């Protein structure tokens, strides 16, 4: 019987001296029990506690944004749009977009799992600026409160893209307030990105060279670069839009000397890289889940790491592909089209390397593997249809149709949300120290995969047949496909709620996880689950590379 087993075993429930809490010794010394008051949570500078705060708030916003989606899908069951008014439908899809993009997808994986895991993975006690980290959560909350106020006060109807001149001259919702909310939450992103970059540069444990960093770290580093360099441009754009609405300083309104297309250029200069802010952390999670499931070193480590950086760089040079039909010069469009196709190269490198990693691995059919496999499949479909819309001629046909909606939902929801739930299932035992029922995790992954495809695959067909986005009264010929999509959405909704039942149940009744429940490598699996407040009793000295699994000889496979 080793020491760690004794620490992780559940105390005897019949022991009269035990107050009835089924806590293990590890849990009593963990960050979760380092202070029990609300104050000790709200004023904490511990990156793990801030990650939990983010986990809770990000999840709340996910369900608010999801509720808006449920309203839309319910409305679209009939072609007449019986449930919502025209105005109400516009407000539902705008809030769905704004909340999902800025309050869920962008912060989701970096602020929860990035926050929790980056110091643990590089052998540090915390992020470089712990107080800035807490501040970024409060800034996020402030932006979130603005958004909720707008939601209650009547909403906005511009779509999440705020295109001028609709947003600056015609929309009559609370456009400025939502712009303020997004402006505020931008600072939260910037501070998180800044913190991650400095942490990775300066706080690596002795021996943790750049080549020994996990791929999760590499993709978060690439994400942080985009966060820091692209977000300020969006802030500026929103300031310009607000200045036009409030003071009549018209940079976008032709009547005041402005140029409406300028808004699209500035907006997409941020918002296309923002797509990679959402998907790069998911790619990092997928790399971890694949290596852990295969129990093998990742195939082509430097190519996977480098392709994250390559995606970050190319992402700044493709914004014009949103504007093929906006009167942009044909030559500019050709360049943007070419560069957009070029993003497929680093993305493809990752897909092939993950597949090669799984090849001849000892694959554990645990929930993390199910989520990783579903991520890879959906990411491939979303990525390939991305090539379709990157072609200028095809884009003219499918622009502003459901084809585009289906494409980016395959990347954002099929990719990022699957990875978010995959990360939740993989690191949950580390975060709370208990295991959940694995069979439920597998079922959730399967339900998400099936429900997702049923929701969004019909939308490819709808879009190709010509159903435009943002319309809720449509040609009755499209009804069958719309009903299929709504049916899929209801499966998806159940699959998203399900984990919260068994994960929360596991916090009290699950078996103690032990430091390394999946039998994988990595610094975060060397510390107790849940980790103590200071992470490492002594800062480790790293002597091996990442994914240090024993290599097998070919002959043993037979």
């Amino acid at each position, binding site marked *: 019987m080793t020491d760690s087993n004794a620490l992780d075993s559940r105390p005897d429930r019949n022991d009269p001296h035990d107050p009835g809490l089924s806590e293990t010794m590890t849990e009593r010394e963990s960050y979760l029990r380092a202070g029990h008051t609300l104050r000790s949570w709200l004023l904490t*500078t511990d990156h793990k506690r801030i990650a939990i705060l983010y986990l809770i708030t990000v999840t709340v916003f996910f369900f608010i944004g999801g509720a808006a989606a449920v309203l839309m899908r319910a409305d679209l069951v009939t072609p007449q749009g019986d449930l919502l008014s025209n105005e109400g439908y516009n407000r539902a899809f705008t809030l769905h977009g704004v909340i999902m993009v800025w309050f869920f997808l962008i912060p989701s994986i970096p602020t929860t799992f990035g926050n929790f895991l980056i*110091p643990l993975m590089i052998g*540090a*006690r*915390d*992020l*470089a*600026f*712990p107080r*800035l980290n807490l501040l970024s959560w409060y800034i996020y909350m402030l932006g979130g409160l603005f958004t909720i106020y707008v939601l209650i006060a009547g909403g906005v109807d511009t779509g999440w893209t705020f295109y001028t001149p609709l947003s600056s001259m015609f929309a009559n919702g609370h456009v400025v307030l939502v712009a303020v909310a997004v402006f505020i939450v931008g600072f939260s992103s*910037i501070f998180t*990105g*800044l*913190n991650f*970059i*400095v942490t990775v*540069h*300066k*706080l690596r444990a002795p021996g943790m060279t750049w080549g020994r960093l996990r791929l999760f770290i590499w993709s978060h580093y690439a994400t942080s670069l985009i966060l*820091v*360099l*692209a*977000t*300020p*441009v969006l*802030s*500026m*754009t929103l*300031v*310009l839009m607000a*200045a036009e609405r409030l*003071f*009549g*300083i*018209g*940079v976008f309104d*032709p009547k*005041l*000397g*402005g*140029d409406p297309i*300028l808004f699209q250029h*500035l907006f997409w*200069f941020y918002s296309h890289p923002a797509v990679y802010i959402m998907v790069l952390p998911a790619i990092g999670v997928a790399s971890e889940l694949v290596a852990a499931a295969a129990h093998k070193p990742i195939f082509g480590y430097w190519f996977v790491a480098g392709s994250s950086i390559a995606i970050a760089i190319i992402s700044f040079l493709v914004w014009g592909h949103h504007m093929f039909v906006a009167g942009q010069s044909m030559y500019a469009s050709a360049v943007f089209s070419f560069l957009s196709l070029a993003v497929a190269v680093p993305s493809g490198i990752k897909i092939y390397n993950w597949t090669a990693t799984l090849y001849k691995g000892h694959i554990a059919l645990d929930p993390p593997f199910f989520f990783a496999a579903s991520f890879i499949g959906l990411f491939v479909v979303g990525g390939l249809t991305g090539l379709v819309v990157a072609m200028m001629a095809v884009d003219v046909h499918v622009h502003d149709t459901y084809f585009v909606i289906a494409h980016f939902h395959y990347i954002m929801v099929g990719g990022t949300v699957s990875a978010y739930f995959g990360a939740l299932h993989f690191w949950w035992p580390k975060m709370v120290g208990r295991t959940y029922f694995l069979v439920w995790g597998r079922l959730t992954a399967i339900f998400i995969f099936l429900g997702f495809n049923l929701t969004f695959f019909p939308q490819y067909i709808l879009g190709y047949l010509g159903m435009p986005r943002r319309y809720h009264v449509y040609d009755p010929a499209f009804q069958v496909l719309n009903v299929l999509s709504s049916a899929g959405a209801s499966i998806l909704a159940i699959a998203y709620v399900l984990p919260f039942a068994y994960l929360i149940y596991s916090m009290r009744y699950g078996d103690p996880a032990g430091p390394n429940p999946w039998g994988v490598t990595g610094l975060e699996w060397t510390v107790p689950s849940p980790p103590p407040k200071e992470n490492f009793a002594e*800062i480790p000295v790293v002597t091996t590379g990442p994914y240090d699994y024993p290599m097998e000889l070919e002959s043993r496979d037979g």
Partner: protein
Amino acid sequence: MAEPGFVREPFREIRQQHEADMLGMYIFLATEIMLFGGLFAAIFVVRVLHPIEVVEASRRLHYFIGAINTGILLSSSLAVALAVQAARAALARRAALFLVAAAALGVAFLGLKALEYSKEYDEGLLPVFSDPGRFSGPVEHLFMNLYLISTGLHAIHVTIGVLLLGGLALRLTGGALRLPDRVIVVEACGLYWHLVDVIWVFLYPVLYLAR
């Protein structure tokens, strides 16, 4: 060389902490550059697309006031650089004096800028509260829109900088900021002020001298 100061929680040694603090500040300044970068890009595009009208619009700006303001900001940067040197030598009083001088120069900049805005308002050049009919055309109107937004945003940064330098001077004289332990604070605020200066050094030729 052993550096002064004390080590905060996640760091293992003072040098590592100092480098991290500076790196964080540099990244923050990079975000500021990107904030103005979008505006510069817009101004540049307008200049390339409509060169004649932009030159015409630029001629109507008071480049002389702008030139004086450039001189004022450059001198204030010198004062801040001297303050940082004094802080490194643990001369709190002298550092505070230089910081106050820099802040005073910043206030002078803002005063002159306000004077310039009021003159432009009288001439009907300011796109807020004035009659758009007085512009010669849409390009001049757009140019003045961008002028007002970019110089206004810069003036907000100068105001923040003045408050920062003034507050720093107070904390240094009151002993709330111990030198040389906390010299990093003076260095970081100094960097911010230099960046605000550099942005003006780019704004001035792009707006006033593009004639």
